């Protein structure tokens, strides 16, 4: 079920340099959102900026019927979002898109890789896996950003029952380097079956995906494209998905509908 709802803002806090967490009340969305899904948020009823923008679900509290998003204030939309006050309503459409799917087998080690503002769905996924409480399953999270001030969820991730790695370009928190350094090292240490999940900037997704493909490690990535509608009708969010049946070798699929989560080995990066 996809909803269009006007939902009140319950909390709105700066959590890091230019990064904000906004908590909204919506039992509908809290109940049915799954990790990797996103919402289309409307700026306001004057339609300026005109179109909605996609934001991933970060945390949900099913009991309280709340969910939150994290955003980096960078452009017109997200800078304006900062001015929204607790008590005001926000129009959201969602939850939209598909989600990260864990393997059936409990033996598989799951490595979740988040980069910058790609971390929110990774946190949601990790917290769900951690809540399942299956001690037999290993969950590893590698969360990276340019520097400490851009890392999402340092405290929140640390409270989960998982193997946690932080990494920053400048070494200001956790390891110095990029997420693929840690991923490579972690994959090399691993014997049993493993599956990778990633969300972050396109460059990172490609690097993570290629690294996994080379090693025959299954990998799901959540891609970021413009999302003019988010509803599957405009065709403005497509990615090339390999398709032997097509004369071109690919078909365009909608990252808002068939995605945003795709198998890394199916994507033809442009």
């Amino acid at each position, binding site marked *: 079920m996809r909803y*269009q709802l006007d939902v009140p803002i319950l909390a709105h806090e700066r959590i890091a340099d230019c990064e904000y967490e906004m908590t909204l009340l919506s039992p509908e969305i809290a109940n049915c959102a799954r990790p990797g899904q996103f919402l289309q948020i409307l700026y306001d009823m004057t339609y300026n900026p*005109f*179109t909605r923008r996609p934001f991933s679900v970060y945390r949900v509290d099913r009991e309280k019927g709340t969910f939150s998003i994290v955003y980096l204030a960078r452009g017109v939309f997200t800078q304006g979002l900062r001015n929204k006050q607790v008590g005001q309503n926000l129009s959201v*459409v969602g939850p939209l898109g598909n989600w990260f799917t864990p393997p059936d087998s409990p033996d598989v080690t799951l490595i979740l890789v988040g980069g910058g503002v790609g971390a929110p769905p990774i946190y949601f996924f990790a917290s769900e896996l951690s809540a399942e409480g299956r001690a037999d399953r290993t969950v590893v999270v590698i969360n990276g950003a340019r520097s400490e001030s851009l890392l999402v969820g340092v405290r929140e991730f640390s409270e989960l029952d998982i193997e946690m790695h932080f990494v920053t370009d400048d070494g200001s928190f956790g390891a110095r380097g990029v997420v693929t350094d840690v991923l490579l090292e972690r994959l090399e240490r691993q014997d049993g079956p493993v599956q990778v999940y990633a969300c972050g900037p396109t460059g990172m997704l490609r690097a993570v995906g290629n690294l996994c493909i080379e090693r025959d490690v299954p990998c799901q990535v959540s891609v970021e494209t413009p999302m003019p509608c988010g*509803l599957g009708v*405009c065709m403005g969010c497509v990615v090339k998905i390999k398709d032997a049946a097509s004369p071109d070798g690919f*078909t365009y699929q909608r990252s808002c509908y068939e995605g945003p989560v795709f198998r890394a080995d199916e994507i033809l990066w442009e």
Partner: protein
Amino acid sequence: MTATTRPDLSVTLGPLKLKNPVMTASGTFGFGSEWADFFDLSRLGAIMVKAVTVHPRQGNPMPRMIETAAGMLNSIGLQNPGLDAFIAEKMPYLRQFDCPVIVNIAADNVGDFNTLAERLDTVPGVSALEVNISCPNQACGGIEFGVDPELTRQVISSVRARTRLPLIAKLSPNVTDITVIARAAADGGADILSLVNTFVGTAIDIKRRKFRIANRIGGLSGPCIKPLALYMVWRVANAVSLPIIGMGGIVNASDALEFMLAGASAVATGTINFVNPMAPVEIVEGIEQYLQSQGIASLSEIVGTVR
């Protein structure tokens, strides 16, 4: 009229009778199935589906769309599953609703238009054909029929000869005098005119020094074009006697009513569907409220009354 009588929202566009005047514009509503969670499609006056071509089309490379001031540019390039898949996979879904289905057909040659018309003529549930002679990018093929009156007449009359379905000609606004094209479409045998399609435009990324759209140019839609679309509807309404489906930048009932006062018998919501999926039904309700507050019994009374 007493306050309790509900105003009559039904409209007649030549051979086409609709329970209300609000349709969803082609390319902004997919093939309907994506909307199931939002509202019952039976509440629409009609649904205009995404352009169908004879063969499947991949469409243009990404990026395909960019937001502009109060609007957006798109260059999708007619990505669609093709005629066979449309008939086999999309029509069965669409047929379930008490809602006329208008099929938007696109082609880069008259032969393909003929094929589309012939095949769709007999498909159950198809209520009308909208001939897209106005796609604003080269992906539609070498020729933009809709900017040339003679080509417009030819393609419309050729399609006309191949279907008994109500025929809608969708006009391009990228012309010096839209009434000339409108008359050509009327001469070719169109029953209804729909206008406008998008305006050709572009945008540049000054940092990367590249076009913001892979195809370089795209079609502009949204509130920014409303004054221009409204003018064109008014011009055509005063020049040609065919019924008009007005569109271009409609976001609410007030916008829709402007088009009807200017001479449109019905309207279509386009880009706003992306932003407010409930817009079409909210507009139906808003029109009803307007008529009630103005004491007008029937919507058709006001069509074209602003001259």
